[in-house]
């Protein structure tokens, strides 16, 4: 492999590039989906290729190909430099990168049991068993269960001397029961909506009790059909942790991406309200809100050894005691705020450029238990599991829906509600956070579908969170029946 990467780097040097890197990526995936007692998808995907990124005449160019051979390396290197020169014709100041110490090494993330070696029949049977249990509940019209596995092996080499090999395995599982009646459709999921994922092997799939939870979620979906509509009100809101993971993702993870802040996603995903003048002084949340970007924690979907610019993994303060103190950055953007890269550049495969992406954006645990939080709430709502999400293009005004919610009355959970939603403005919402559950309630959730960029890229990111409480939140927007 090294002869091919060296060839690419030498070629771009000869062509006059001031910087170049090549990533060779091989990715395999497997997906099994069971729906209503039938295996509707048993598939695998193997994909490999390389991408060459260069700076020539002070501008970026990138070209990629599936054909990993010396001639194609030369062709793609030439195209990358040609593209960079075309970019330079519509370019401002030359690109400058923050320095990075060249790294050489080979790194493999922990995986106890290779999921691709686990028998397919065993995986299918587990999903079929969960499916059958869910369909015992009469109202369940669609029972779905899914497993997903990924294996990614990549080499990064740069004209600055880095040569980094990294391998990782990711696994996920989830079940969903959808109940249907006249004019109504409701669903419940486990362990998380869309499944739960981690950087781990088949042992991760086995740790979740999908069989033991199948009947519960099916019954809850059926109960939701006749549950009252979530009221429209202003209340105390307690979010279960998988829902809070989405809240962190949308209202903190995206607005701290420094490329968004600088407008380079303006035409697609949008920009950010967290402009550089706010760094170090803006009140993002209450005193108890502490958020870090940590790519070093074991098992997170946003965990790695080096990012796709060869910058080492690190833990960075984002929100400290409620104040906004840090961004996710790259080698290009960090110098513009007088910093070095925080190591957040990640690409979705060989045929995409790295972009600033979330790593594991973690809300640090507090000192409450969930029971204490509920007992301490006179009138509120406990909302659970991601339903849907929407937020404006500066990440201020959001409205999220959950699968289910429960009334909190005098410190106890009560009435179940369907179609719960809540809405707010990001800093006001986090400013109203007055309780965060402790480390025993804290876990890292894996999000496998974070979209960004043109052409589109999907990132796997993590969010460590514990259930938390927010005051004076606007809940419910649907008209009551």
């Amino acid at each position: 492999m090294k002869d091919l990467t060296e060839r690419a780097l030498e070629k771009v040097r000869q062509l006059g590039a001031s910087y170049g890197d090549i990533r060779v990526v091989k990715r395999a995936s497997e997906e099994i989906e069971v729906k209503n007692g039938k295996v509707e998808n048993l598939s695998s995907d193997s994909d490999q290729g390389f991408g060459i990124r260069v700076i020539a005449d002070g501008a970026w160019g990138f070209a990629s190909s599936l054909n990993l051979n010396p001639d194609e390396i030369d062709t793609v290197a030439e195209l990358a430099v040609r593209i960079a020169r075309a970019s330079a014709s519509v370019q401002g100041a030359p690109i400058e990168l923050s320095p990075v110490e060249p790294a050489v090494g080979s790194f493999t993330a922990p995986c106890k049991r290779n999921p691709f070696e686990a028998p397919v029949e065993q995986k299918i049977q587990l999903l079929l068993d969960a499916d059958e249990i869910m369909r015992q509940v009469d109202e369940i019209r669609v029972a779905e269960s899914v497993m997903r596995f990924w294996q990614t092996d990549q080499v990064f080499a740069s004209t600055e001397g880095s040569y980094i090999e990294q391998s990782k395995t990711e696994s996920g599982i989830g079940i969903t029961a959808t109940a249907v009646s006249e004019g109504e459709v409701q669903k419940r999921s486990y362990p998380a909506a869309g499944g739960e994922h981690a950087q781990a092997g088949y042992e991760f799939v086995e740790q979740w009790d999908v069989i033991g939870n199948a009947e519960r979620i099916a019954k809850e979906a059926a109960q939701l059909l006749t549950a009252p509509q979530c009221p429209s009100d202003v209340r105390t809101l307690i979010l279960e942790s998988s829902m809070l993971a989405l809240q962190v993702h949308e209202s903190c993870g995206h607005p701290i991406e420094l490329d968004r802040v600088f407008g380079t996603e303006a035409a697609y995903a949008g920009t950010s309200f967290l402009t550089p003048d706010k760094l170090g002084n803006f009140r993002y949340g209450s005193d108890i809100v502490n958020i870090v970007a940590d790519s070093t924690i074991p098992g997170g979907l946003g965990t790695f050894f080096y990012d796709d610019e060869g910058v080492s993994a690190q833990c960075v303060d984002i929100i400290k005691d409620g104040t906004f103190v840090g961004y996710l950055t790259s080698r290009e953007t960090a110098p513009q705020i007088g910093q070095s890269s925080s190591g957040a550049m990640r690409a979705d495969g060989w045929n995409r450029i790295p972009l600033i992406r979330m790593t594991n954006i973690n809300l640090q645990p507090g000192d409450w238990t969930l029971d204490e939080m509920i007992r301490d709430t006179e009138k509120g709502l406990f909302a659970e599991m991601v339903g849907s999400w929407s937020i404006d293009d500066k990440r201020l005004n959001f409205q999220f829906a959950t699968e289910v919610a429960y009334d909190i009355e005098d410190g106890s959970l009560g009435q179940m509600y369907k179609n719960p939603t809540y809405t707010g403005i990001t800093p006001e919402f986090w400013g109203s956070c007055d309780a965060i559950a402790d480390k025993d309630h804290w876990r890292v959730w894996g999000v496998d579908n974070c979209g960004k960029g043109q052409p589109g890229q999907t990132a796997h990111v993590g969010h460590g969170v514990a259930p938390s409480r927010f005051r004076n939140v606007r809940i419910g927007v649907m008209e009551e029946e």
Partner: protein
Amino acid sequence: MLGREGLLQILEKALSWSSADQTQVSLGIGQSSLTRFANNVIHQNVSQKNASLTVKAVVGKKIGCVTTNLLDDASVKAAVGHAVQFAHNSAENADFVSLPGPAPAKDVDAYDAQTAEYSPEDRARDVGGMIGEAKRVDAVAAGQLSTAFDETGVANSLGLRAYEPSSKAGLTAVMTTDTGYGYADRVAGRISDFNPMEAAVEAATTSVKSRNPEAIEPGEYDVVLMPYAVAEFLEFMAWLGFGALAVQEGRSFMCGKLGEKIVGQNINIWDDGLDPAGMPRAFDAEGVPTQRVDLINNGVAVGPVYDSYTAGKEGRESTGHCVSVVGTYGPMAANMFMRPGDCSVQEMIADTKRGVLVTRFHYTNVIHPLQVLITGMTRDGTFLIENGEIVKPLMNMRFTDSVLERLSNVDMISKETVRQSWCVAPAIKARGFKFTGVTEF
């Protein structure tokens, strides 16, 4: 390019290596390039050459699928073997009837050499021109200009053979003045089908007009929804309910409503993958010829679209709407048309006593699928209309509204349409649109 013969030769070889009862092999191969700009410079500029070969093997009623981008004989043979093994290891799917049989597809002129050969320098020149227009009005431009070509082929063991080359070009422009935003979007099979400068002028003009927005109270307003916003309505309808699987599973708004009026009588929506006004394709992901399907006629739910799996469940033929061999979401209407009206957007504005003009939506998502109740933000040009005139730009607002309910209250439909990736949509004037919040810009 491989050409018809070269591409089908790969598929024939793959079929010959399969021991399954039925086998389908599909291959897409091509190159795509995208030049992205922001802050009035090109900041990302990329190109990729890729392929995707998918083998679907059927043993009895057990199915396995394997996808690879490795096209050498050994890799393709391994993919076929893996798919057959998967099928043997899988469990029966009693609803599966058969892969589709051969049927002649109509010729569609979907390939354009100029688009396929558009160079990095061509794209940079076009982008430079658009940025020049932004600078002319003191705006900052962001967006992308992309070109791509593909060859797609499908073959199966029942004798189906299909091949089609195609090209695609796209453009997005968001222009920003100090406090204003404007937008334009183009998609076509041929780069010559749109004029980047005309799109730049559209975005730049709106970005100037939308400066210094003011907030209004959320509530119910009459709205003029520009075609970009209406296209999003159609896409949600396609996603949530125009597919047969959604109907069969009871999660479609068409469930139990076929033959009934579900929106206003002035609403007509159909899917036609052969109409050159859209993004025509000769056949779907299973190689089945695409055909026109009426979805809503005069407000009445007429019928969903089918792939071979959902059609087999009902003992009917596929309508050619399979969008992916792999996956479980089912067939989709992906070339929709909404019948235009006979008025202009200007006439809609003139007809509005007090209302809001929405250029487009942002980050829209579903709250209730059966009601097609969705929420999202307005973006890139929202204006207050009073007494038949646009009187001021507005800060962006959140809406939470039912698409079905809004399409039941449409007073006017424009003659102008805009082509998007999934549909061709007009502008509409509708009563009682529900704005539920406001943001700070």
